[in-house]
């Protein structure tokens, strides 16, 4: 790792996004406990290095598909925390006018082809986006986030098989946080890694430390360059850990406290902060980022609280692009 070739601004920006995601989600957990949030909240606390390292390897014109644990993916790809927060509060000012909620944030202008509530469903969608770039002869790369559990869906095999057969510009990014709800990946999969499956498709497959933002950044950069050069897809596996339950309210009693405590010591934000201090970054600079993020998230929540709910008449709106009224009526 040659840290020298990157600017201090880039590192601070990465750090800021990791803190932004963390504080956004911690705020969500607080709101959830106070009964202010409806529905399910899946946080990615502990996985911020994987998410931020990955998205920093992408260009603005590139596309992603996110998962049900997708707040971080969207924020790292450029989504604003106020519109995100409003969406999660079901307000009309949210990214999807409050109609999608936590699991369905999307913004096509930011290249976010949607978070997805169905495990493994984003993989073929990303593949289709890759196909589009190939058909149109453009050079955007599409990256599909999915978890270790999704790698056991049929769509994983079908999509990567097609993408490799046709050399589609797609990066299949497995966030291996080791649990599909309560089931440890090791108990349902016989291989040491997910990335090893790349051999079956004759494409590159790499596993990296998902709690090291720079390791992720550099690994994904290579995969993105491979795709952009029209050499086809690859699999990148980032090994990390989901620090909280599957969703808020899940005590995660199915896994050992000791293991979780071990992972807590490897907190990606803390680790990256320490690394930055070893370089020419001061504690004051990190504290300033912390304070700025506190203020931003507080303002985002206030924006969400102050925003109106969608008018009830919107309930039948936008089911169809054309002939909506008649198609909804009967």
């Amino acid at each position: 790792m040659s840290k020298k070739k990157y600017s201090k601004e880039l590192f601070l920006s990465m750090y800021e996004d990791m803190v932004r995601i963390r504080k956004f989600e911690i705020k969500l957990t607080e709101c959830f406990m106070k009964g202010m949030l409806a529905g399910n909240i899946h946080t990615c606390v502990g996985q911020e290095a994987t998410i931020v390292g990955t998205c920093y390897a992408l260009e603005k014109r590139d596309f992603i598909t996110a998962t049900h644990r997708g707040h971080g993916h969207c924020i790292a790809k450029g989504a604003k925390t106020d519109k995100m927060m409003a969406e999660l509060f079901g307000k009309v000012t949210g990214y999807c006018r409050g109609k999608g909620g936590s699991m369905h944030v999307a913004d096509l202008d930011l290249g976010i082809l949607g978070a997805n509530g169905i495990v493994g469903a984003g993989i073929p969608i990303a593949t289709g986006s890759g196909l589009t770039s190939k058909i149109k002869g453009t050079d955007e790369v599409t990256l599909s986030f999915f978890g270790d559990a999704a790698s056991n869906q049929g769509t994983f095999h079908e999509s990567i098989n097609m993408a490799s057969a046709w050399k589609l510009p797609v990066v299949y990014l497995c966030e291996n946080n080791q649990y599909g709800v309560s089931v440890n990946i090791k108990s349902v999969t016989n291989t040491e890694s997910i990335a090893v499956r790349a051999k079956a498709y004759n494409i590159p497959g790499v596993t990296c430390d998902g709690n090291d933002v720079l390791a992720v950044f550099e690994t994904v950069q290579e995969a993105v360059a491979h795709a952009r050069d029209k050499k086809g897809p690859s699999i990148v596996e980032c090994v990390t850990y989901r620090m909280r339950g599957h969703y808020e309210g899940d005590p995660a009693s199915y896994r050992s406290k000791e293991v979780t405590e071990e992972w807590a010591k490897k907190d990606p934000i803390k680790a990256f902060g320490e690394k930055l201090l070893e370089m020419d970054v001061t504690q004051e600079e990190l504290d300033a980022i912390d304070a700025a993020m506190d203020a931003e998230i507080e303002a985002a929540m206030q924006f969400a609280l102050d925003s109106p709910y969608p008018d009830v008449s919107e309930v039948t709106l936008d089911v169809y692009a054309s002939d909506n009224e008649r198609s909804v009526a009967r």
Partner: protein
Amino acid sequence: MSKLSMSKAIREGLYEEMLRDENVIVVGEDMGTMGNPFGITLGFLDEFGPNRVIETPISESSFTGMSVGAAMRGIRPVVELMYVDFIGVAMDPIMNQAAKMRYMTGGQVNVPMVLRAPIGAGRRNAGQHSQCLEPLFTHIPGLKVVAPSTPADAKGLIKAAVRDDDPVIFLEHKLLYAIKDEMPEGEYVIPLGKANVVREGKDVTIITWSRQVLFAKEAAEELAKEGIDVEVIDLRTLVPLDWEAIKASVSKTHNVVVVQEGYKRSGFAGEISSQIMEELFDELDSPVYRVAGLNVVPPFSPPLEDAFFPNPQDIIAGVKKVLEV
């Protein structure tokens, strides 16, 4: 006026749309050199190249899902399931992705794709290749559903489906593919959601679609000999439903038989029957009756299969039951 079979008519419609709009692509199994088992895409690979004729592996779930992703990016994929029965492995991209994407994103993104799928019994294809399954699609908000009965309609409707910004399920009855009929001259599009009164009558209305339209017309001619004047409505599109056409006809004849090939239980005929009951109750002079396929697995043995789905005699019996004659 030239005559064309329905498979050729659909091919012609797709061909015209691919010429018109370079974003239109076809996706599915055996779409290339073979040109699909029914010749729908014969010659397309040579004409449009492999970038627009996507011959897929047998991966229905992912090539359908892939088409959703491409449609979100502005491509207009026309996906083919070789048989509608295979929807079982490709339902998530249709039901949870294509159908919901616009609504869940607050209107940000459309999924302008067409899913073409052959339907229907009568070819001795047995349990897993003979179903109709319309209600699987009509049940899901966000999908439009089309099922033509003639070559001319099929061409005009496939063009409308390709141009539509919503996901359209286009159901083609296998036993209609070879039937030839007159084709209109020149380029034309038939709008979705418009039914066709294929026979006017005053005593009873038969509402149906796809192959059963042919059977209903046969039944109507037989009944005319007995002095029963039957009106036949070919819905052509199930969603959006042409309620005005249904209402006008029911208000005229006051007696209704809804005919569908698929399983009777929870079929779309039941949906139409309910809507008539809810909104046109006072127009009815008899209970709405459904003539439909049996609630059994499509059998292989020819005499069993023939007993499985409605034929003109069943429709005649249904009409007489309603009119109590």
